[in-house]
């Protein structure tokens, strides 16, 4: 059993469990699944700066912040007690393309050649970690939700604006991963 749990979980286990978050949060207390909203709550709590967008009672949404604390703890357990002992299995085409940029996948979920403190101030890592992070925060708020809020919660509730948002997430990601990232990775 423990051996099975340590293996990477297949999509047909993970997907339904993620989907069940939607009714679980609704039935536990009328909460709609969404995570990018926590970034807004943090702004409202730390530096509202008289900006009307941050003038609300963030404490009423504290469940959302507790929820992401849980994500952090769950991830910690998954990466220690239930860590996969083997290297990541990655598509051969991606391995070839990354090798050309001196990136060699190992056990880590993200390439250490980019996502590590020692690399932070190289051009490609700075762009991907800092600028990428900024785009995640700015874009999700402008779009009114992220993968959890729009793609899982919104689509589950059959909201067509969420479908538009999801298609744009995919479109932006497709352009970046196929046309812009190869240039950044070669920096």
């Amino acid at each position, binding site marked *: 059993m423990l051996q099975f749990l340590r293996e990477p979980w297949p999509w047909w286990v993970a997907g339904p469990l993620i989907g069940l978050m939607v009714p679980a949060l609704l039935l536990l207390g009328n909460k709609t699944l969404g995570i990018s909203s926590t970034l807004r709550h943090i702004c409202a709590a730390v530096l509202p700066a008289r900006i009307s967008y941050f003038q609300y009672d963030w404490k009423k949404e504290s469940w959302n912040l507790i929820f992401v604390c849980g994500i952090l703890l769950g991830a910690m357990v998954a990466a220690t007690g239930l860590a996969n002992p083997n290297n990541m299995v990655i598509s051969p085409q991606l391995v070839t393309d990354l090798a050309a940029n001196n990136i060699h996948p190992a056990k880590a979920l993200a390439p250490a050649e980019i996502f590590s403190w020692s690399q932070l101030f190289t051009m490609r890592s700075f762009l991907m970690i800092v600028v990428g992070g900024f785009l995640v925060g700015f874009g999700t708020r402008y779009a009114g939700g992220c993968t959890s809020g729009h793609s899982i919660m919104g689509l589950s509730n059959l909201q067509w604006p969420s479908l538009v948002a999801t298609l744009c997430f995919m479109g*932006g990601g497709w352009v970046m991963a196929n046309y812009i990232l190869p240039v950044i990775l070669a920096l």
Partner: protein
Amino acid sequence: MAPLNQSSQVPQAPKEYRQAKSMSDNLDFEVRSLDTMGMNESQLSHPAWHLLKYLAMGFIFGLVLVKAEVVSWYRIQEMFRFESFHMYGVIGSAVVVGAISIALIKKFKWRTIYGEPVRFYPKKFSIGQVLGGLLFGFGWAMTGACPGPLYALIGSGITVIVVSLFSAIVGTWVYGWMRQHLPH
């Protein structure tokens, strides 16, 4: 991208509404409808320890995100390069299960464990879902993480993602700061 002269078309809520005490009291419908995600729709208040159930839910969510490698930069690249079915399977089956669950809740009028009716809010279309969606798509492919995985990656030990999380908070703040000048 954002013509500044459109700012006059964005309705500005009266001051008393901007100072509203809570999100549910906030009558600025534009702000509210753009952000009905991750919200507390409950009108009840409970002792703080009741929040622990959300810690437990988050724990399961984080565990699944890491164990299914949904938070992996490589899996995100494979998804956007159409080299693996994994992420499509995860998101697709999550939506199917979520949609069936919501249909059941609506059909049988299931209530919360506190007896409240479950509330749903429709999403209003905004051009922000297109423009912001594309920008988020760029960021998702670069960091390999959407907001949930940002927290999960930090927990999984890739601590430099703290910098991405901080950048994302700054990005959110900058959006709030300039949102009246952006087309919505």
